[in-house]
């Protein structure tokens, strides 16, 4: 490592230079890349137990097969991110089996229980849309060659998950009645979770190594806006109520509640009238949500059990 300074590398990647080996990197670049890949891998990994929890409510064998195909895709995506991390000197066994569950870096939204089929397909529509928004931007803009190649498969498959979600929430909407209400109840807690997915607003961040080193192309607020402009018009068309409004004339989305906002995970309810600071939101993220330990444990339990058997 070390043939460039941070400033030199930042200028080069903004001009289109692609990093392919460790000697192209600086220590700051490598640290930012490791963080980005850890968030990416953890998000894909933890989506698996979250989706599996809900998939047990699949309405038929066929739909169960679709859901488990999605789960298998997500595990494959996690594997790709962790594999890239291994090449950067991070131990995959440590990542998967030794870290404290609270130290995983996936968004708070994936620390929540997904209880039934309506919640699974809503998550496909909202969270996989968030995934495509974030990873699509990385795919187009990243200066790290191995990641750009690794995301070819990921982007392809995330689009399938998104379609699965959108087709199903449309189906629930067209069915009306209790079906539509089930999705509406889900969106009530899940939509603001998706808004938070993109992190702190831009004016809270002093500088951003991921942008400076072109590990991504868009800022948190730009990504959030892209997501809102996809999710809100679709939900309005389907007749779901969201605390947001799409203006077709300006092609903009306005939230109808104030950010930041507090969440009560036991009641699964947003306290829209309670004013809090981003620092408090950050504390909530750091403390992790109700399913954090259970999800991580479910990925470890059977492996450890088999290891004990083999050692006996």
């Amino acid at each position, binding site marked *: 490592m070390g043939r460039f300074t941070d400033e030199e590398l930042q200028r080069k990647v903004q001009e289109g230079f692609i990093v392919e080996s460790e000697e192209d990197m600086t220590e700051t670049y490598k640290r930012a890349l490791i963080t980005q890949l850890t968030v990416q891998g953890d998000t894909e990994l933890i989506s698996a137990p979250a989706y599996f929890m809900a998939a047990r409510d699949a309405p038929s064998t066929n739909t169960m097969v679709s859901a488990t195909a999605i789960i298998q895709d997500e595990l494959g995506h996690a594997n790709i991110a962790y594999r890239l991390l291994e090449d950067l000197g*991070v131990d995959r066994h440590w990542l998967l089996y030794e870290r404290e569950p609270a130290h995983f870096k996936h968004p708070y939204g994936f620390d929540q229980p997904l209880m039934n089929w309506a919640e699974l397909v809503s998550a496909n529509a909202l969270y996989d849309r968030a995934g495509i928004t974030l990873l699509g931007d990385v795919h187009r803009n990243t200066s790290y060659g191995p990641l750009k190649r690794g995301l070819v498969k990921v982007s392809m498959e995330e689009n399938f998950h998104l379609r699965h979600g959108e087709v199903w929430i449309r189906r629930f909407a067209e069915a009306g009645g209790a079906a539509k209400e089930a999705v509406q109840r889900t969106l009530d807690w899940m939509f603001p979770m998706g808004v938070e997915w993109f992190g702190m607003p831009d004016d809270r961040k002093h500088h951003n190594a991921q942008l400076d080193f072109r590990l991504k192309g868009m800022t948190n607020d730009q990504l959030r806006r892209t997501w809102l402009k996809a999710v809100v018009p679709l939900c309005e068309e389907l007749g779901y109520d969201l605390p947001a409004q799409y203006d077709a004339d300006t092609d903009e989305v306005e939230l109808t509640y104030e950010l930041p906002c507090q969440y009560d995970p036991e009641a699964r309810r947003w306290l829209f009238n309670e004013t809090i600071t981003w620092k408090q939101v950050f504390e909530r993220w750091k403390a992790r949500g109700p399913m954090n330990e259970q999800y991580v444990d479910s990925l470890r339990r059977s492996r450890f059990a088999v290891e004990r058997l083999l050692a006996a």
Partner: protein
Amino acid sequence: MSGNGQVYEVFARKKRADRFEHVGAVSAPNEQLARVYAWQTYDEAKWFEMTVAPRDAFAAVNRPQAPFTLGDPGGRAPADSR
């Protein structure tokens, strides 16, 4: 427990006339499992042909170091910095 074995590079092509494309890599304790992991992980296309080879089997031709050599697999992250 022993680590992840070694790294295998994965190459595939969609039809007969195509060139092989480097589609990614897997870590596996042996070649048998490397083949399974590669087929399961990189299933984004209906490949006509896929092959794996250990990373250390590659020799650099025009660059100072062999391709795919980054870091020290099996190392550990400096810190779990959040």
